[in-house]
Structures are given as structure tokens and as C-alpha cells.
């Protein structure tokens, strides 16, 4: 078991800064997900943590002990790799036993613990199976067992579900979550899949360009994203560009391009009056509202439990031809009981507490 502290961890590859100075505490037993696009530095964080990469600057502490200069083999961390990195010339049992053999545990203890680990991941009795004969999901579970059997202080996972198909991914997400709840182990989980992050994490850190842009619970990040990048990365979002009119406390007022009246919403980080920004309203908050803004249905997609509508707001000229330079505003609505069809003109609206005003991020 271990609490983890990154103190000013920085990484350069040549002259390229892969990781800005990172200060981060991960509590004992916490499941932290690093979420971000490829190249955002999340795997770099993981590799520095495991000791596969040396940071250019900064120190790493486990339970208050500086481990920065300790080689991977002495860190006692369990890593699950993206493509599992199972030893192809060993069978399932030998793969799982590898760490215990390296630590020179007695043979009877190894056998017992390997069997226990395989039971935990529901692969009992497959000890002698060649890893190449397993399905992707089974290989993934062998990798998990191999990492867990050494009872690591910290569990590290690098996009471990990336190679699985959608249904299997969902099952394994829940399985990992259940195992974590039953036996909380400090875990750092790297993914670019927002759904994985939402299902499993205690906290999510959204990364971009080698920096954590926002960290918090899934609820925090979804309801109060710091900027348009986080909003776009977590959940579906309508982001309508505009200009900040005023900021008052936690709220800001924005003039959205093409909307007649200004909109007020929760203010994101580092907004400035007069600067460009975006208004965020999630599709589930865009509703049918008589007397609201008129919009035309451009697309209607039936998704079973709900219907997604692509809507075009006509602009300030009120339904007449839009001015060539300002294209019509488009946004999505996702509702479960709104039967509109293509080319219908509907009136839409949203509650002001479901709106945020967020700074734009230029990538």
C-alpha cells in the first residue's frame, strides 16, 4: 500500500518538454485516472512512476520515501501494459509466477499465490495454457493477475483495455472497479477513453500538452469543466463561440455569436472580459421550450433510450436568410421523449444553471 507524491517532476525528451513540472498527491488506496489525448504526457507520468523513465527534474515519493533513483525492480509497483506484454514463451502460470520467482519465494508459496491470483481474475485452472491461445480478454486478465500477485504498493495501468472490443471493455471496467472497491490499492490508470475514466476513477486528471489542466471527481469535471478542452474531452458538449461581457463572482455573461440575447452561466478558469470564450450547454440540457429560441431540426437520430437532434438556430435575423459570414449556430439535443422530425421548426431553451462560460483553448 502506498501514497504517492510527485514533487516538481519534469521530463524533457531532447529539447521537447514532455512534462511540465508536476506536483500531485495520490492518496493511499485512491484510483486516479490520467485522461488525455495521445502526446499529452500521461504515459510519461506512468513510466516515470514505474521507473522506466528518469525524470529530468523533480522527486517522486512513495509513502514519504524518495524513490526517484531506485530502479524499477526494487520499486514494487505492478504495471499492466497496453498490449499486456505477456511473456510469449511462458504459459499462463509461469507468466503470473514470474514476479514471485524473481523475488525467490518458495515454490509452494508461489503455487498457492498464483492459483489465488488466477482465481481472482476468473482464470482458475488455466495455468498450463499457452498465452497465445487465450482471447484478448483473458490475456488482459493474465496481465492483471501478473501485476497483482506481487502485491505491489502501487498498481499502474497503461490503456489496458485499448485492445478489447466494446462489450468486453465495459465488463472489464466494472470488474476492475469491483476489485478496487473490494481491495483498494493505489492505482494510476492511463486512458484516452472518457467512459473508462468515468466508470472507474475516484479522481480524474485531464492532461494536455504535458500538463494537468484539471483534476477532480468525475462529477466536478463534468459539471464544472475548467475550459472548453476539458468540456470536450469529458462527455458530449455544445460549445458556442462568443465574447465575455462581464464576470460577477462565479458567474459570467457571454454574447454568443449569432444569438440575440446574452447568456449567463457558471464561469470557468481565467476568463477575461472582452476576450473570446465559449458557452457550454450539454445536449441533455437542451430541451423543447415553448416561446424559446426557434431552431430547425437538421438531423434526428434514434438511439433507443433517447433521441439525438441536430438543431440549427437561425440567427438574429429570425428565420430569414442568415448573413453569409455568420453560419447558423448548430447544437445537439439528447432527450428521451422529444419526438421531432427533420425540418420541423421547434422552440428550444435551457436552464441557466446548466450553462458554463469557458475560456477557449488553442491547441
Amino acid at each position, binding site marked *: 500500500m502506498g501514497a504517492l507524491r510527485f514533487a516538481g517532476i519534469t521530463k524533457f525528451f531532447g529539447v521537447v518538454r514532455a512534462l511540465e513540472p508536476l506536483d500531485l498527491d495520490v492518496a493511499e488506496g485512491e484510483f486516479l485516472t490520467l485522461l488525455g489525448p495521445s502526446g499529452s504526457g500521461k504515459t510519461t507520468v506512468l513510466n516515470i512512476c*514505474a*521507473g*522506466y523513465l528518469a525524470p529530468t527534474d523533480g522527486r517522486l515519493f512513495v509513502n514519504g520515501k524518495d524513490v526517484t533513483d531506485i*530502479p*524499477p*525492480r*526494487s*520499486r*514494487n*509497483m*505492478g*504495471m499492466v*501494459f497496453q*498490449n499486456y*506484454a505477456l*511473456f*510469449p*514463451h511462458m504459459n499462463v502460470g509461469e507468466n503470473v509466477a*514470474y*514476479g514471485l520467482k*524473481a*523475488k525467490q519465494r518458495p515454490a509452494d508459496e508461489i503455487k498457492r499465490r498464483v492459483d489465488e491470483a488466477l482465481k481472482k481474475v476468473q482464470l482458475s485452472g488455466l495455468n498450463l495454457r499457452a498465452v497465445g491461445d487465450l482471447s484478448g480478454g483473458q490475456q488482459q486478465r493474465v496481465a492483471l493477475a*501478473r501485476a497483482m500477485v*506481487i502485491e505491489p504498493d502501487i498498481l499502474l495501468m497503461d490503456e489496458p483495455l485499448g485492445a478489447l472490443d466494446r462489450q468486453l471493455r465495459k465488463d472489464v471496467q466494472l470488474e476492475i472497479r469491483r476489485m478496487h472497491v473490494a481491495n483498494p490499492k493505489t492505482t494510476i490508470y492511463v486512458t484516452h477513453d472518457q467512459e473508462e475514466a468515468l466508470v472507474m476513477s475516484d479522481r480524474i486528471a485531464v492532461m494536455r500538452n504535458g500538463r494537468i489542466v484539471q483534476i477532480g471527481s468525475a462529477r466536478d469535471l463534468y459539471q464544472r469543466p475548467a475550459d472548453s478542452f476539458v468540456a470536450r474531452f469529458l462527455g458530449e458538449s455544445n460549445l458556442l463561440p462568443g465574447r465575455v461581457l462581464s464576470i460577477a463572482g462565479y458567474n459570467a455573461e457571454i454574447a454568443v455569436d449569432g444569438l440575440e440575447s446574452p447568456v449567463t452561466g457558471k464561469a470557468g478558469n481565467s476568463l477575461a472580459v472582452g476576450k473570446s470564450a465559449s458557452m457550454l450547454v450539454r445536449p441533455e440540457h437542451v430541451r423543447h421550450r415553448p416561446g424559446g429560441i426557434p431552431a430547425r431540426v437538421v438531423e434526428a437520430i434514434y438511439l433507443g433510450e433517447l433521441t439525438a437532434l441536430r438543431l440549427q438556430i437561425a440567427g438574429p435575423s429570425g428565420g430569414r436568410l442568415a448573413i453569409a459570414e455568420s453560419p447558423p449556430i448548430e447544437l445537439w439535443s439528447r432527450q428521451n421523449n422529444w419526438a421531432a422530425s427533420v425540418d420541423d421548426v421547434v422552440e428550444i431553451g435551457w436552464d441557466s444553471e446548466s450553462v458554463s462560460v469557458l475560456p477557449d483553448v488553442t491547441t
Partner: protein
Amino acid sequence: MSRIVSNAFAGLVAAFFVLPIFAIVPAAFNRASYIRLPPDDWSLRWWFVFFSDPSWRRALGNSLQVACLAAVLAVVVGVAAALGVARLRGKWRALVTGLLLGPAIVPVIVLAISLYGVVRSLGLLGTTTGLVLAHAMLGLPYVALNTSVSLGALDPKLKLAAAGLGADPLRIFRTVTLPQIVPGIVGGTIFSFVTSFDEVVLSVFLTSPSMKTLPVRMWEDIRVEYVPTVAVAATVMIILALGAGAASRLLFRR
């Protein structure tokens, strides 16, 4: 129909490649002392001649000894070189790889002339040591290349995974790297064994009347006139080469 045609064509191509190799075999079992296909009269006469002649037996023994020693030396140096090259980057890697492949690229006759000078100045001319060193040099590129290919196919994450599970570098080499590159090493070994075993040009320069290899002995005989014992020697060589190839296949059937 097209299947029959393509199979027939493949058979023809195979025959074109393989038959000339085996054409010598019947001659080894001919009673007569000249080459005739097929033989008029089957006999093991020349096999008795071959194995009862001490000079043929010595040549075969020398060849086996030199080939084994050269292969062992080529493997030790070649595997070490391949492991070293794998750690190099950029132009150093290209440079060292080029040097390692040198003996396979330089015309053998050029190699033979320069080696003649070097080996003589070391006082190793006509010795087993001299020939073993020269043959090991010929085999080295095959071992290094084969091992490099296996190393290149090795997922670098496997080593990271092993290190993360607590294995020290020696254990990682023994349990992860080595098992993955053994097929390449064995392939390279057999190649360098066979290369040494049938090598003539270097051997002609570096052997002496008291230390001849089988191909040199054959070469000397056949230069004067054809004798059927050469066919026997050739058959022995074919059997050994095929045996080595088959052994590697059987050992590493995956």
C-alpha cells in the same frame, strides 16, 4: 486444372534447384571408377576406400573439428556483437552493422589473400587455430544477423515488464531475452557450421599438406582426375549439411 499446372511448375523449379545437388550421389555407389548415370553396377566399394584411407579420414576429421570450433567461436562473438549493436543508436549502429557484415560482402578471394598475409605473420599458417579463426570470421555475419533479427522482433516492453516484476538484468537476459533469440542463434550456428564445412577458397590458402580439410582434399584430387571417392566425400557432406538443417528444424518446431 490450373492447380495441377502450378504444382507441376513448382515441381519443375524444385527439381531444377535440387537435382544437380543429388546428381553426385549415385556416382558414390558406382562400381566403376568413372561417373556414369545411372551406375551400371551398384557397390559400396568407394565407401570402403574412402573410410580406409587415413588421409580422407583425417580430412573429414579436420573439417568437422574446424567447423565445430569455428561455429562455437562465431556464436560467442556474433551473439555478443548483436547484443551490443542493439544498444547502439543512429550512425554508430549502421557503421558497426556494416563492419560486422563485411566478411559476407567482401569477395572471398580478396579475404583469402589478405588473411594469408595476416595468418602467416602470426605464425598460424597451416594450423587448425588459423583456419578456425578465419572460418569463424566468415560465420560471424550469419550469427550476428540472425540474432539481430530475433532481437529486433523482441518486444522491448517484455524487458520492462520483467524489470517491474523485480527481475535483475541477468535474470531478464536469462528468462526473457535468451529464450526469444535462441532460434536465431541456432540458425546462425548451423549456417556458420555449414559455411565452414564446405569452404574451399580460404582453406586452400590457409591449410598445409599436414592439415587439410575435406573440400581441400577433394579439390586437390579432382584437379588431377576424377576419382569416385570424391563422390563419396560429396555425399558425406550433403548428408551432414541436411542433417544439420533437419536437426535445427526438429529442435525448434513452433
